[in-house]
């Protein structure tokens, strides 16, 4: 059943990718391209957080630590060495994975709010290191001077259209990978641990190890998001690892929905659109965004896709009953 289901996902992914790659040919509007690049970066980031929150029941407040580590590792590799982009990406991913291994090993032992605060503390520590180690990271100004983007595979990522294509491919591939992982036996074990860790333990599952793997995977995917954002701004900033970035990811998954795989992606798109429209129209964007978030939190009480899913299930049930 899973194998069949995954071919469906792959096909869907291919169709989406095809559509995405068609867009620049259909419209000269650059704004759509920039939007998709940012959506790819933040969508991957938010979905990786949901691996922990929605699928693992681990509420991390410090996930932006990996977004930042990916961005900085990638940008620094390109600035200081003559490695190409794919190699730099690999460096970023491996580095973030190692950081996630060390920090995760310490954090996942804790439960609930303590886990959350510990991830927050580590992230703030990481952020404070970025700010203090000015010789390496440029301190509060971030990495200045732009990042060299040596062409590879015929792509010159300094061109928006090429970056768009790259971001689309990376985005679709990451989403397919994350989906595959979450639908695999590991994913089901993770959900079992989320629902009842004690029972899972009794069944012989090494709960700590499952949580750690989830933490590492989430960190690795978050770093890919960081790489894409770094390409977009041609650099890296300490803000990437600040609590506001973690907070944005939390918004995206809460507004998009934690129980549906594509929920965080929907949430990212929503938040980006709100942000872009609101900052154009009013100077009181804090007020506007705050009100929107309140509507979601108090009105819908759940993310949009969760809302739609519940509605759908309710319809199905009432359909069967009658």
């Amino acid at each position, binding site marked *: 059943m899973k194998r069949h289901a995954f071919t469906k996902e792959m096909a869907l992914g291919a169709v989406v990718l095809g559509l995405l790659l068609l867009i620049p040919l259909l419209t000269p*509007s*650059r*704004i759509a391209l*920039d939007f998709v690049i*940012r959506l790819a970066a933040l969508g991957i980031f938010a979905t990786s957080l949901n691996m922990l929150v929605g699928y693992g029941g681990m509420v991390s407040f410090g996930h932006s630590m990996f977004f930042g580590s990916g961005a900085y590792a990638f940008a620094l590799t390109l600035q200081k060495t003559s490695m190409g982009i794919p190699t730099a990406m690999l460096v970023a991913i491996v580095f973030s994975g190692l950081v996630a291994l060390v920090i995760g090993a310490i954090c996942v032992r804790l439960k609930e709010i303590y886990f959350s605060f510990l991830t927050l503390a580590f992230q703030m520590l990481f952020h404070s290191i970025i*700010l203090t180690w*000015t010789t390496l990271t*440029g*301190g*509060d*100004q*971030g990495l*200045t*001077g*732009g990042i060299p983007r040596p062409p590879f595979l015929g792509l010159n990522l*300094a061109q*928006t259209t090429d970056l768009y294509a790259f971001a689309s491919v990376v985005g679709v591939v990451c989403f397919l990978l994350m989906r595959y992982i979450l639908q695999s036996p590991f994913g089901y074990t993770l959900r079992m641990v989320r629902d009842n860790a004690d029972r899972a333990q009794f069944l012989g599952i090494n709960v700590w190890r499952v949580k750690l793997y989830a933490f590492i995977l989430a960190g690795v995917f978050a770093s890919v998001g960081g790489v894409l*954002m770094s390409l*977009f*701004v*041609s*650099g890296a*900033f300490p*803000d*990437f690892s600040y609590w*506001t970035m973690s907070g944005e990811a939390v918004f995206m998954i809460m507004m998009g929905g934690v129980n549906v795989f594509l929920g965080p992606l929907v949430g990212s798109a929503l938040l980006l659109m709100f942000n*872009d429209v609101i*900052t*154009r*129209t009013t*100077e009181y*964007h*804090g007020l506007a965004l705050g009100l929107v978030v309140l509507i979601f939190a108090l009105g819908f009480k759940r993310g949009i896709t969760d809302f739609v899913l519940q509605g759908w299930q309710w319809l199905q049930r009432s359909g069967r009953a009658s």
Partner: protein
Amino acid sequence: MTQLPVQASQGRRQLLKGAGALAGLSSLGMPAISLAQNKPIRIGMPTILSGRVAMLGIASTSAAKMEVEKFNAAGGLNGRKIELIIRDSKGSPQEASRVARELVTADGCEMIFDGEASSGSFAVHEVARDLGVLVIHTCSETSSLTADPKLRVPTAFRCARQGIHDAVVGGAYAAQVAKEKGLRRWMTVSPDYAYGRDTTEEFIEYLKYFNKDIEVIGEVWPKLFQPDYSESITRLVQGKPQAIYSCIWGGDLTSFIDQANIYALLKDRQFFAVNMADYAVLTAVKNVPQNLHSGNRYLKNFPNTTANTNWSNEYTAKNKELPLNWSWQNAAGMQFLTAAMKKANSSDGKKVAEALRGLTIDSPFGTNGKLTMRAEDNTIVDYAVGWGTLDTKEPFMAKPNMGSWKQISELELEWKKRKGWA
């Protein structure tokens, strides 16, 4: 922030423009359809209008708008008026990057008037590099933006003061005061971030250059926007310096002085605060200490010319508040931009950039009534820099000492050589 409305007063023109604007508005992201000679010159302005540094954006946009209105009222560029599109980046560099890109790619802006603080400026600088668009940075004082050849972008310019210039003038002034009053033991207290560190380092360097007897016995580095300076102040008190230097600014400087006063830190001590002569701080601090020296962020009597006072009065009348450092920098930036457009007789970014390089304009903010955009590194020189003692009331700095640009340029060149930038 919303777009600056551009209204012509003649009826027929207005009708034609209205029709064009309506057609343009109906398709977001596509160029406005209007008659060629009335096509407005769109200039995008990313800046910070919210958060702790909102005053930066407010002062910058007020000044820019004032110059734009004057330019448009005088007929614009062959009848074409400037349309200034202002966006808030909320102080986030990635948002600044996105906003700058959007202004160019989606809003049809031909030039970017960058009112971002230093980290945002670096982000917008990369957009200039990638998209090849003309950018004038008006709020970033970090020297490396234009001085470092590795960072330089041919279409990016800076119209703002630079830390190194302030440091030469300030160092020379302070060294003189130190000789007169026998101030040998110094301490510094500045915010721990790039601007704070660089500015302090440069000031001390030139202080020691002009006066070999100076000894810095301690440095204190509170965090930017830190609310509580108690531990910094007690450290200064323990050190017992004769003089203290600080480049803390804005609301933090007000807090620092208020807190320092209750420790009587500044009683019988000379305090050199480069960012004190700023109307926002001068009006907020209730008890300005004695023995206060400052550089000139902006003062309407420095330079002491009618042009400067007139500009200040006009600004105050229009905006109901006194101009700040960001105000004059943006006004000058817009003056440069409009002058360059007139010289090139075009709104094409590349042509305007050519015209800007090495351009000298009349300006109320120049040492001798003129400002020049230095061709070799795309940054302004000859603006009025000075230091002096501060009083508690208007005109606040009665006898400012104006810096000599000959001296500044010499020392700046030598400093650049030492850094490997020249």
